[in-house]
């Protein structure tokens, strides 16, 4: 039985609590993008993807997810923990010495659920294409998902990969861009304009969808639609419109919370806005 939208929203609320608590506990990390992408992660891991939290690196017969914008590791880690990849209690070790929950995700500490290191931006799409090619070679019908930041599109390697995937009909790939319009130094349109992303990806030969990334029903529906459009000769790109910091009113919509942790008072304010639904770690 797939969870209902309401159940997914409850999970998302708990993940958001985890995110602010994790970055508060180590006084570092990236809450803004994590909060903005919580619906996406929740939908992916609790409704859309076929995956096994027992975790096998080779993921034979399973869908794979790659996080390319690795700095939003808090939402990734919390999602993996709630999905059963490792104990929720381990979230308390985030970014602390000897942790498997490194600042940016890595395979190096053998954290279940992570299949590639990310953090240095622009690399995840290529990796995902490689995994998708191997699935095709192995006759494995499952899918590969990726998430990228919109600021990350300023990296040139993204566009190498963007050219490659349609040419090679990598149609078992569903990529998503978190279009929140923010990056470290300010709004993307002031730092380096991304232009018409829909037209750009279409021009590169992708099947482009758009979704409201902070609307759980729309996220689930669009990801399912994307799945139904795989296997038709084109890779799929979803432009996911989100608000950075969504769910915490004083963090919403500003690049200022990209990589800043809340203080004690701000933590309490944030937690007051996020219902504890599944129990804090």
């Amino acid at each position, binding site marked *: 039985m797939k969870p209902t939208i309401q159940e997914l929203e409850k999970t998302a609320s708990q993940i958001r609590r985890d995110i602010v608590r994790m970055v508060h506990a180590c006084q570092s990390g990236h809450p803004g993008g994590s909060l903005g992408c919580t619906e996406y992660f929740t939908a992916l891991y609790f409704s859309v993807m076929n995956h096994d939290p027992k975790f096998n690196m080779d993921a034979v017969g399973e869908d794979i997810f790659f996080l390319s914008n690795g700095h939003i590791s808090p939402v990734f880690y919390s999602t993996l923990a709630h999905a059963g990849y490792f104990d929720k209690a381990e979230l308390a070790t985030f970014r602390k010495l000897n942790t498997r929950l490194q600042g940016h995700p890595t395979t190096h500490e053998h954290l279940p659920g992570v299949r590639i*290191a990310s953090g240095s931006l622009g690399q995840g799409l290529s990796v995902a294409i490689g995994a998708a090619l191997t699935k095709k070679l192995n006759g494995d019908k499952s899918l590969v998902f990726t998430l990228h930041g919109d600021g990350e599109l300023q990296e040139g390697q993204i566009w190498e990969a963007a050219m490659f995937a349609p040419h090679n009909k990598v149609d078992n790939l569903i990529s998503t861009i978190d279009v929140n319009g923010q990056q470290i130094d300010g709004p993307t349109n002031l730092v380096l304009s991304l232009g018409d992303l829909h037209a750009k990806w279409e021009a590169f030969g992708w099947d482009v969808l758009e979704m409201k990334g902070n609307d759980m029903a729309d996220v689930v529906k669009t990801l399912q639609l994307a799945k139904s459009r795989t296997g038709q000769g084109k890779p799929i790109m979803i432009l996911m419109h989100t608000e950075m910091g969504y769910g915490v009113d004083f963090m919403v919509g500003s690049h200022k919370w990209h990589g800043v942790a809340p203080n004690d008072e701000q933590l309490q304010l944030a937690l007051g806005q996020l219902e504890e639904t599944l129990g804090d770690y």
Partner: protein
Amino acid sequence: MKKYTYTEKKDTRSGFGAGLLEAGRKNDQVVALCADLIGSLKMNDFIKEFPGRFVQVGIAEANMMGIAAGMTIGGKIPFTGTFANFSTGRVYDQIRQSIAYSNKNVKICASHAGLTLGEDGATHQILEDIGLMKMLPGMTVINTCDYNQTKAATLAIAEYEGPVYLRFGRPVVPIFTDPDQKFEIGKAWMVNEGADVSIFATGHLVWQAILAGEILAEEGIDAEIINIHTIKPLDAEAVLKSIAKTGCVVTAEEHNRLGGLGDSIAQVLATHNPTPQEYVAVNDSFGESGTPEQLMTKYGLDAEHIVLAAKKVMKRKQNAVISI
């Protein structure tokens, strides 16, 4: 002294091409990727036999490294092919994060390394790649000396689990190693035993070291010549065993003297048994256009310079009898 001769010259990259084909026949998980240099990398035979296991990436080396890393997930053994310059410096961060740090079973196969790329000049003649790659934790670094050794190394790395940098070159050079050799990663090859000076050589400089050994022998100097094909992990035991006998060292490589084989050996010596050492290497400069032979002579990477270095380092031995 063992005498080495040859009847044929071939390029080491052709050894790679032959090894790749054989590795592909032995293991259907072997796949190859290339960034628009199929002919230069001698991948044609592999592609002809296994078209479905070849990925043409186009002129996009960063993407190639990422795709190779991703292809390992699900069990493939990807061999990437492009020039050494584009296999390392151009894509260092991709290799660092997606391959080395992520510990992916990718074989980075790099042709046209060093000065012997020739006429194309310094933009393409990387002399820093060994240093770049050996600094990455977990990366195995191999530089082969002839066709047979390159073929054997290609087969060996296909069976080894973990990221590897395999470096070879463009020009035809003598084939002097055994066609049926078993290539052991991390194990130095004793080319010739000697007592007066240890010459550690890698890549195209191995043949030059053999020629130097013959010249030295005529002058009564008994040189020990050891081929270090695997720069990382370095066969420190072989190095220390040799210098215990000879008490002085010449290192020879087609690479910048900073960061190459010579530095790796110097580190072993400094921490275990400080020993006089001379470098035959490029002296912290870029290359230039010219024929491979002209360049190797101009930059001092030939038998003659190895002989000079051997004589010089022997004089620096403690209690050396200055009679050379």
